[in-house]
């Protein structure tokens, strides 16, 4: 069979694989399958500037109009429902069977559902989600956000700015547990000062509604301590799971997303990248599944190169950011569970600081609060070799 590369998933990672394959000179058959009808778009602004009405959809597009169709055969509005790795086929939800020689899995993650009438809660994963949600965030509306992670807290800030009454329900002792107590407590404090009600150490146990569809009318949100919160809208932001159901029974290790080596290979003829994939990261000394926008692009570039015979591994310093209303937090590295955060360079007058995460005496990550340039400096000093060498994928 002639070479045919099939990419399943048309968001940041899948789209970047297609673009890089062509950029690297691949001129064979190339097919892209995407669940949505929109052009590939950037998701991080959905909880922030897009939700706030500051960006138009066209400003989210990751490719120019028609670009993708010049690069690949595109199946839009279709999902993969099954794969047979031995026969090298993928079946779509309309029954189409796609033969291929190489498969790239880039199906991302699916938001987790709240217990009890989950249909009564809205999610914020897609552009269509964001549009429908934005229409409900008018001044004075009561919004309950289940989940104190990045999506929950960012959305809380946006909704506050739009004049909503916001209640954030966080399971941990403070929001953003991934960043540790110091930063998480500060975010909680700032959210409260901005007018949000922040309930910690609690979780949503049920959503009660008379109607059946999301966002159709008032709901009552019940917490695990018995508290009942009346609301106009409840957002489920309690996390997500890798979208690997269509790969069940293929023999791939799907313990935490698709298990890959440091170059994105999961099995002969199969690569994975983006939120759905957990790669071995040499500098971390283990496998990591990172739902970071930057990481998706880096992985995609390595996968494209390796599909064309290269033997690259990705060993760059992970990077992510979160906009907490007026506050920008950037993190380079991995704030590993159990790592201790030590702030330094406090500049209370200007509301900015940096800090370092350490575990077993080793720096695992650096963070900056309203000081992104300082974070880059710390990254150079503490985490990586000289620039720009630290971000060029090393040879295997």
């Amino acid at each position, binding site marked *: 069979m002639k070479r045919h590369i099939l990419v399943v998933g048309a968001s940041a990672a899948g789209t970047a694989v297609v673009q890089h394959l062509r950029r690297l000179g691949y001129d064979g058959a190339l097919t892209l399958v995407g669940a949505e009808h929109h052009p590939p778009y950037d998701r*991080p602004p959905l909880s922030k500037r897009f939700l706030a009405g500051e960006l138009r959809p066209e400003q989210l597009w990751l490719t120019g109009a028609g670009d993708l169709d010049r690069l690949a055969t595109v199946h839009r509005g279709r999902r993969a429902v099954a794969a047979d790795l031995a026969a090298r086929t993928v079946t779509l939800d309309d029954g189409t069977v796609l033969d291929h020689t190489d498969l790239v899995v880039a199906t991302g993650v699916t938001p987790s559902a709240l217990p009890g009438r989950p249909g009564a809660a809205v999610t914020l994963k897609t552009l269509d989600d964001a549009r429908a949600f934005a229409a409900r965030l008018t001044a004075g509306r009561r919004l309950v956000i289940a989940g104190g992670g990045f999506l929950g807290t960012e959305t809380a800030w946006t909704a506050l700015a739009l004049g909503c009454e916001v209640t954030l329900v966080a399971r941990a002792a403070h929001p953003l547990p991934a960043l540790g107590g110091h930063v998480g407590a500060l975010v909680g404090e700032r959210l409260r000062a901005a007018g949000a009600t922040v309930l910690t150490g609690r979780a949503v146990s049920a959503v009660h509604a008379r109607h059946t569809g999301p966002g159709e009318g008032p709901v009552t949100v019940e917490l695990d301590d018995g508290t009942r919160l009346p609301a106009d809208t409840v957002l489920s932001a309690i996390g997500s799971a890798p979208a690997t159901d269509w790969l069940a029974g293929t023999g791939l290790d799907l313990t935490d997303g698709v298990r890959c080596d440091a170059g994105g290979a999961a099995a002969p003829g199969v690569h994975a990248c983006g939120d759905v994939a957990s790669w071995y990261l040499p500098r971390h000394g283990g496998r990591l599944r990172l739902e970071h926008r930057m990481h998706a692009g880096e992985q995609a*570039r390595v996968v494209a190169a390796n599909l064309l015979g290269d033997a690259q591994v990705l060993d760059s310093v992970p990077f992510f950011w979160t906009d907490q209303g007026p506050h920008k937090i950037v993190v380079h590295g991995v704030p590993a569970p159990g790592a201790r955060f030590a702030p330094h360079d406090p500049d209370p007058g200007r509301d900015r600081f940096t800090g370092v995460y350490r575990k077993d005496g080793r720096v695992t990550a650096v963070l900056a609060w309203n000081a992104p340039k300082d974070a880059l400096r710390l990254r150079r000093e503490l985490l990586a070799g000289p620039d720009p060498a630290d971000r060029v994928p090393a040879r295997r």
Partner: protein
Amino acid sequence: MKLTIEEDKCVGAGQCVLVAPEVFDQRDEDGVAVLLTEEPAGPDREAAAEAARICPAAAITVGGR
């Protein structure tokens, strides 16, 4: 080559500064990228093109010539 940055889209990741420090800098307060030169020369051209490719917000455009 003529570079432009869409400030509205820039998320302040600073990745462009890492790969092309002669071409890009960041505003101190919010990290939004600023151009040190709109028309980089020599090896900085390829570095700038690389920065545009890796920008997590697709905020850098490489135009013309």
